[in-house]
């Protein structure tokens, strides 16, 4: 009996993520046809910092998407039975990184080390010694003197490989689109930011090449307490960060837009009720409301184990619930902004003209008010992202973050924190988590700034 070698699996968060990507693509196509939006995006595209940041973000998104293609591996067939699939859920990224995932050590080891971090009693020796790693530097055999040379060689090879890949890309661009190198690579003068994008890609390719070359023989960022490769954990954390940063805002946006416009345009008792609702919600300190809601959500999940077939599904449900809770506590700010803007728009001539033509209330809100609020929505979306990624780490520390089995920056930091008192210090998990998070958040912040400058009518003067 033949079946697929893997069983594709869609977690709820994957579904939402792909729906979101589809919506963004649709919006982009729509925006291309609108002159005002096209010129605003044109301003973003000319901003060198923004485009460099966008390139970095795109790489993060690519990693996140690869990590969202989930499957369950097929177990060995026994004759006469239907195909059986493993309980563990893996993603395409896991498959690509199986080198990193499967080559675990026993416990902590420093970056690029060949030995474990702490002494242990060995079988055939009286003294306690640093045991040799199973995989880190295993290709060296007993020739440990070659360790440093090997690392240097791999560094060089990796960087050269990255450079070669980049040159290949340039050549391909030249063949396909007739890109001429000299003007395209010029940074500073010129109309486009192509130089910034290409140089960012060069940096990323070089890092990628080095990571591949070193990762083939060593643990680039060391291993954690149970011997997992820290580089692998960091890459897996990206998806969680992206999900929390985007889904949260998207979940709350429809509510915020609907209530904000209704309050601003309809006014009267509708306005009173909506204002009361968001004042009440926003008067509860954010962390506490989130903590209370997450505690209660935990009780619900724990008392209904029958809802989830696998632990991955349970962790996924918790992640989504966290997004939902974060969204419920953060829609108030956007709703307030939209209400204020709607109040202003309501008095403008084109809205009054529509009213005097007898256009219905809801048609006015949809056709005349909503399109003029989209820049606020977009700005809120990009501005909230980085804050949410940072918040995830804090919430996991407080104990109301993602499921402990979900790999995220927060859980990485939280487990590494326990080892801070150790002497000498186990620093690599922390540095890796903070480093990746910093790159993601900085890129998002820089990009968000450019988007705000381009779309905010006040700043374009």
């Amino acid at each position, binding site marked *: 009996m033949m079946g697929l070698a893997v069983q594709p699996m869609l977690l709820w968060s994957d579904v939402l993520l792909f729906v979101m990507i589809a919506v963004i693509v649709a919006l982009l196509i729509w925006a291309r046809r609108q002159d005002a939006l096209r010129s605003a995006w044109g301003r973003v595209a000319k901003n060198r910092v923004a485009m460099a940041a966008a390139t970095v973000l795109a790489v993060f998104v690519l990693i996140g998407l690869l990590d969202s293609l989930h499957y369950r591996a097929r177990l060995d067939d026994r004759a006469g039975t239907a195909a059986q699939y493993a309980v563990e859920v893996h993603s395409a990224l896991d498959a690509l990184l199986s080198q990193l995932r499967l080559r675990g050590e026993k416990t902590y080891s420093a970056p690029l080390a060949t030995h474990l971090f702490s002494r242990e009693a060995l079988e055939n020796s009286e003294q306690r010694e640093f045991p040799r790693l199973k995989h880190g530097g295993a290709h060296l055999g007993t020739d440990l003197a070659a360790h440093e040379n090997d690392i240097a060689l791999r560094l060089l090879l990796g960087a050269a490989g990255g450079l070669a890949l980049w040159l290949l890309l340039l050549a391909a661009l030249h063949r396909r689109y007739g890109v001429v190198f000299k003007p395209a690579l010029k940074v500073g003068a010129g109309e486009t930011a192509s130089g910034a994008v290409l140089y960012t890609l060069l940096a990323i390719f070089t890092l990628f090449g080095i990571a591949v070359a070193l990762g083939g023989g060593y643990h680039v960022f060391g291993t954690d307490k149970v011997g997992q490769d820290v580089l692998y954990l960091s890459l897996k954390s990206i998806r969680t960060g992206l999900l929390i940063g985007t889904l949260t805002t998207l979940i709350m946006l429809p509510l915020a837009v609907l209530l904000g416009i209704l309050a601003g345009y309809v006014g009267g008792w509708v306005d009173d009720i909506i204002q*009361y609702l968001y004042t*009440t919600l926003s*008067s509860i300190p954010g962390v506490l409301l989130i903590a209370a809601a997450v505690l209660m959500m*935990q*009780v619900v999940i724990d*008392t209904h184990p029958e809802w989830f077939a696998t632990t991955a599904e349970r962790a996924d449900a918790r992640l989504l619930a966290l997004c939902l809770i974060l969204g419920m506590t953060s829609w108030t700010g956007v709703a307030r902004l939209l209400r204020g803007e709607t109040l202003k728009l309501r008095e403008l001539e084109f809205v009054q003209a529509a009213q005097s033509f007898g256009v219905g209330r809801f048609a006015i809100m949809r056709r005349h008010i909503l399109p003029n609020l989209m820049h606020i929505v977009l700005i809120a979306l990009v501005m909230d992202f980085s804050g949410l990624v940072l918040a995830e780490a804090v919430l996991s520390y407080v104990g109301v973050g993602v499921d402990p089995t979900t790999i995220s920056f927060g859980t990485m930091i939280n487990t590494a924190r326990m080892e801070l008192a150790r002497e000498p*210090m186990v620093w690599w998990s922390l540095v890796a988590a903070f480093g990746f998070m910093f790159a993601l958040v900085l890129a998002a912040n820089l990009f968000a700034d450019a988007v705000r400058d381009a779309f905010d009518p006040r700043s374009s003067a």
Partner: protein
Amino acid sequence: MLAYTIRRLLYALPILIGVNLITFGLFFVVNTPDDMARMQLGAKRVTPDAIQKWKAERGYDRPLMWNSAATGSAALTDTIFFSKSVRMFVGDFGRADDGRDISREISTRMGPSLAIALPTFVLGLFVAVSFALLLVFFRATRLDFYGVVLCVAMMSISGLFYIIGGQWLVSKILHLVPISGYSGGLDAGKFLVLPVIIGVVGGIGASARWYRTVFLEEITRDYVRTARAKGLPERVVLFRHVLRNALIPILTGVVVVIPTLFMGSLLTESFFGIPGLGSYTIDAINAQDFAVVRSMVFIGSVLYILGLLLTDFSYTLADPRVRLQ
């Protein structure tokens, strides 16, 4: 003024009732007390007796909203809603899981929280506003550009990193101050220095950048041009005119948080082992002590509403044109 205050306080009442209903809904309706008991006791020790005992210890064995067994007003008062939620309005928060009175715990822990939060707030405000003014003074130069880049980079760093990195550098490598702990009186100083500095440094990126935007918006106004045309030096223009006029947007963002300083900071207090309200809250969250979390939610919103009221009053101080009526 008095009439305005009273009216504002009356407006606050429905909001507080709303907060109360939300927390009640979250803690008692989404999950029944039985669910909570089962979760806290753990799978092994769950027996109907244990659940009953757990509920009785906490006073959760009463009906939710309406006690049909009682007579008269007791039908309303002898319920979870009345004893746990309504009583909060008179400052009765009940007991924590360890049996201590929450109100007393709060009043003793407010001191350490304030000792950290107040200096952090004042110093942070001063440093951020000065830095922003400096950037605005050198606007459209390289200094301004790199200053903004520094701000964006600093606000992209996780708050946890500032704390962990600061503790590592100052306490572990340089051995300047103890890594964590607290003591009353003047001794507290050496425990407070590091958390305050870390709090200030960690907050400077976002706030300095925001103040810079506020100042830049103000600097394009006509009165600034007039002041320069009179021949006033830029220093005077900035400090006397721009700073004063930018006070309203700054106050809007700043005064609200003053009362909430009492709540302390969750992260700082738990990392530095300071026995304030922030660490109290974190401990309660980790121990799933729902009574304490519920109380802190309520107090937090009371203080926030107080902050909104103070904001309005501060406008009249900053801008004589504003009248409250």
